């Protein structure tokens, strides 16, 4: 082939074949993509049009129902089996904006329509199941709470997370144990986010969180429980935190426990915090100094002042803030007026500019 005559090489049918066939394949695949994308757009446009015409009918009626001047049945009579999914989507938008009695009115309106989407909980597509869980939770958590709790065990992590978030926001603390036992499924999620999710179940969940913290479970999950206890400012958690800290937990759990002690700790917890304040890990050192600001006593002021001169800027910032909290304002003033590099930090603390 390499030594072939000029024109025969150029005209090589095989070569032209390769070129033509590749062109066809690429153009074919891409044309298929394009066609299906445009078809989907077309479908979406039609749906959006239908939805806005429904909305134009429903909204004036809904506002009258909410004002108490129209019976619910008059609004429900305009909903057909075909439009019921649109109707629920319409109601969800309002329910998310409203609280109190106005929200209850929306859930009352939704109650007779909701059973229509129960079948979606078994749908093959995960995002469809997740949407159903979300709709049920927004419009009928009291009625359908048990179904949503079952969705915690859904094979799709998305559905499980939507269920957990719905239950967390629902003020139904009875589901805490089931949410906690699923915590490992959300281990990819940000721990601060998970902690606030657990804490939003309310103060009733503190006992369950405390016993979870004492288990031998995954330290990362237990760190989440510790942070949640901190958000709930659980007064009993301090003793447990000390107990776990004494067993030299891993770094992430220790950090969460030190943060917990900063919010709920007392003078009786201070000694273990002091050992961390002189430790080698700078993150833990910063957190321990920060905890000393709230639970330490006059004997800690020296350590906090020293902390401001730590090589790690984070440790210094936390120490300065703690110094202010521990009543070291005079020391801060001295540093602020000095020529030391830490004077800016001291000035900032005195001005209250810390976030």
């Amino acid at each position, binding site marked *: 082939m390499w030594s072939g005559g000029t024109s025969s090489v150029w005209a090589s049918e095989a070569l032209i074949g390769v070129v033509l066939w590749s062109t066809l394949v690429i153009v074919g695949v891409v044309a298929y993509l394009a066609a299906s994308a445009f078809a989907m757009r077309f479908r979406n446009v039609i749906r959006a049009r239908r939805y806005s015409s429904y909305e134009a009918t429903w909204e004036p009626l809904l*506002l009258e129902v909410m*004002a108490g001047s129209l019976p619910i049945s008059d609004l429900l009579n305009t909903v057909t089996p075909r439009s019921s999914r649109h109707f629920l989507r319409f109601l969800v938008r*309002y329910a998310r904006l*409203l609280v109190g009695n106005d929200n209850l009115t929306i859930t009352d309106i939704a109650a007779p329509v909701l059973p229509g989407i129960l079948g979606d909980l078994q749908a093959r597509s995960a995002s469809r199941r997740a949407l159903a869980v979300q709709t049920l939770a927004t419009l009928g958590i009291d009625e359908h709470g048990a179904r949503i709790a079952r969705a915690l065990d859904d094979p799709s992590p998305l559905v499980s997370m939507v269920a957990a978030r719905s239950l967390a926001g629902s003020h139904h603390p009875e589901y805490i144990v089931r949410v906690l036992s699923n915590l490992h499924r959300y281990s990819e999620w940000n721990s601060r986010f998970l902690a606030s999710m657990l804490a939003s179940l309310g103060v009733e969940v503190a006992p369950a969180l405390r016993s979870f913290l004492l288990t031998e479970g995954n330290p990362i999950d237990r760190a989440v429980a510790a942070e949640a206890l901190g958000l709930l400012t659980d007064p009993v958690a301090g003793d447990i935190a000390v107990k776990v800290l004494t067993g030299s937990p891993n770094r992430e759990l220790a950090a969460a426990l030190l943060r917990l002690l900063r919010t709920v700790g007392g003078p009786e917890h201070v000694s273990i915090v002091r050992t961390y304040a002189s430790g080698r890990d700078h993150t833990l050192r910063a957190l321990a100094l920060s905890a000393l600001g709230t639970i330490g006593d006059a004997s800690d002021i020296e350590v906090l002042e020293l902390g401001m001169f730590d090589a790690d800027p984070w440790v210094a910032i936390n120490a300065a803030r703690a110094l202010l909290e521990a009543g070291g304002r005079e020391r801060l003033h001295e540093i602020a007026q000095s020529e030391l590099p830490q004077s800016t930090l001291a000035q900032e603390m005195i001005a209250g500019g810390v976030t």
Partner: protein
Amino acid sequence: MHSEANPANQRPRILLAEDDALTARLIVHRLEREGYEVFHCQDGQSALESAQAPDSEPFSLAILDVKMPRMDGFELLGRLKEDPRLAPIPVVMLTGMGTEQDVVRALSGGADDYILKPFSPTELALRVQRLLAR
């Protein structure tokens, strides 16, 4: 149902600055039913211009959302309180969830009351009524 609070048939004018259309419709509808006249602006800049317009009828109260394009609620609040003609108008701030520090900013900036979103139009109407009665 309609308000009998205004015998002179002079309906109190309320300035509403809110960029979310649905929230605005809920508020306008409820307040109009209560007998108020609501002037709705979609951003802080146009709300300020409407309030400052020399020929406009004075507003009896302002409801300001915090997050708005062009000018946010805090800046609008500050501008209103700077203007001696507008400063006496009572202000209710609408603040979003998870923003408790915003409540402090609103009250220390001179707002008379606040409502946390998600909200209850009924509660908002009651607070408006109470502020106007002062």
